[in-house]
């Protein structure tokens, strides 16, 4: 029974990793950009949610209704200015620029709001859980986050395959020049992809703030987990990211069960093993690596 609990907790946390990672995956798939400030964007979103909700007279739980659109807009604007400018140089520059942004954001948050942990306060529901077995507790919040992750992935998948804009996004991702020749404005499409990525990472950041305490330095760790989920699942596969996130979550829970010190280490080791034995990931295509 104890191992069942380990697996269930792993799946729950894996859903969160997938939610966190899908923006990263999308940015890489379409823009070919690794946003090293991805994790810090989530933390900024959580801070905005905490600081904004008293002013807007809304419960922190519903702050995402305001913060997520703001971040979508921010993503579009940042893409059309800073990120596009670095893409125009080379992929190398985008790494340096986003890493620079990451360090600047993290230290700015430290300077403005100290290293103290904060939470997005959603009241008593945080402690409540469903209790289906002797030692199995399923937190309602984690369950909702997992459901949101699946929903976001499904909507994203549907958007990319069914809508006109989604098909344009895929066309630009596959072959930018050919899409341009057919009349696609790739900079606008890039902006839309970045907007979606930022909106999902804002959602992930607020969810993180509801589940646990966050601090200015939380972004880095979560980016690491998100990245591991993407590589384990297979670069370029949305559902692969969910499976990768769950695999990572289960590995971490197994490690934590043996010794709390081994939680992150077990996840890292799973990542390194996948990299050694199946570098294209569980669901990835080999070509994605080149």
């Amino acid at each position, binding site marked *: 029974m104890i191992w069942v609990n380990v697996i269930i907790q792993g799946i729950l946390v894996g859903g969160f990793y997938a939610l966190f990672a899908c923006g990263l995956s999308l940015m*890489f798939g379409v823009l070919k*950009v*690794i946003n*090293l400030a991805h994790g810090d964007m989530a933390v900024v979103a959580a801070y905005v949610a905490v600081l904004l909700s008293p002013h807007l007279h809304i419960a922190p739980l519903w702050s995402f209704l305001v913060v997520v659109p703001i971040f979508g807009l921010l993503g579009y604007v940042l893409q059309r200015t*800073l990120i596009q*400018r*670095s893409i125009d*140089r080379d*992929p*190398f*520059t*985008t*790494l*340096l*620029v986003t*890493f*620079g*942004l990451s*360090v*600047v954001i993290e*230290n*700015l948050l*430290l*300077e403005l709001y100290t290293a103290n942990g904060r939470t997005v306060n959603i009241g008593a529901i945080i402690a409540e859980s469903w209790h289906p077995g002797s030692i199995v507790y399923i937190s309602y919040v984690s369950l909702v986050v997992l459901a949101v992750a699946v929903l976001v992935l499904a909507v994203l998948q549907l958007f990319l395959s069914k809508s006109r804009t989604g098909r344009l996004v895929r066309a630009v991702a596959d072959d930018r020049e050919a899409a341009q020749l057919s009349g696609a404005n790739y900079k606008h499409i890039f902006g839309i992809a970045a907007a979606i990525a930022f909106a999902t990472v804002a959602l992930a950041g607020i969810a993180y703030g509801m589940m646990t305490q966050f601090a200015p330095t939380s972004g*880095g760790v979560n*980016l*690491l987990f998100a*990245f*591991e989920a993407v*590589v384990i699942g297979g*670069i370029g596969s949305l559902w692969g990211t969910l499976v990768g996130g769950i695999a990572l979550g289960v590995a971490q829970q197994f490690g934590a069960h043996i010794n709390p*010190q*081994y939680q*992150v*280490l077990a996840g*890292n*080791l799973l*990542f*390194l093993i996948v*990299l*050694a034995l199946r*570098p294209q990931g569980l669901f990835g295509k080999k070509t994605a*690596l*080149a």
Partner: protein
Amino acid sequence: MSKSTTPRVESLSSVSIRRSTHSPVFTLIGSLIIIVLLSVAPWIAPAQVASTLMNFFILVIMATMWNLLAGYAGMVSIGQQAFVGLGAYATLYFALKGVNPFLTIPLAALATGAIAIPVTYLLFRLRGGYFAIATWVVADTAMLIIGTIAVLGGGTGRLMPGLENLSPSQTAHYSYLATWIVALIVVSGTYLLLRSRLGLVLASIRDNEVAARSAGANVRSARRTVYIIAAAGCGAAGAVLAISQPFIQPTNEFSMQWAAEMLFVSMIGGLGTIEGPIIGSIIFFVLQQSLQQQGVWYLIIFGVFAVAVALWQPKGLWGAFRSRFRSELLPVGHWVRRDQTLSESTDLHE
């Protein structure tokens, strides 16, 4: 990178190839003066200056190694703190075995270089951004593993043994000299390396990887060599760090701060030049010293500066200076020029 049109080479005699833009004697004399001054600094300057200089040297070592990795071999790593930390812990390990801490520095460099070999076989499966984050996973894993080893102090840390018999001023002087010598070896070693055959291969990969491959350059093995050398260099930096700040703790030695500093410094000074990281380090220390009352603002300002440089002046400050004045202190490229018959310059740099 060729700036002007390729000159048609009518006959070989009309082309001359030079490495330096000025007589190397000036560089040599200048370097000698600086080397002598910095070697006696702890005896003639206040202790505060010597300890700042020591931190400056550590940053120069790391930045020079990062620049070799990114600026010359095109690999962006944000996980070089793995090797800084492993170097520090190798020093601690050997010192616990009874080796004199100062003698452990070369051992630490060798050990980290050796650890880097299997790491390349994992990391080189990924490219670009994924490579970058994977280097970070490696650093995180190394930190977590070290944190579980009780003998090395676990997660809480441990004091470096073997330094108790020295007086505080002796410790300060010796660790200054050790740091300075390592910095000197790393910078001059990088200079010689880039003038060697490997340097030529790296330049050809940077300019055109496909052409370099077809001309027979073994890209992967060149990159692997550079990665191992950069790891060993960062290991040496970690070793001198462990001696100068002898309380060894995983979160300090494996700090992401090292990666941020080496990256910013190289970017601002100029990637792909030997002088760049040194100039970037000077700017960093001036900024840090003048803003040290203001918390981490120096890092924020420096980061914004680095991003601006990457976007608008990607060759960095030294790169901009070099292309404006066509002058170099430590030339590693080649200047191909036609003989005086042409008034207009047709230089092909590197």
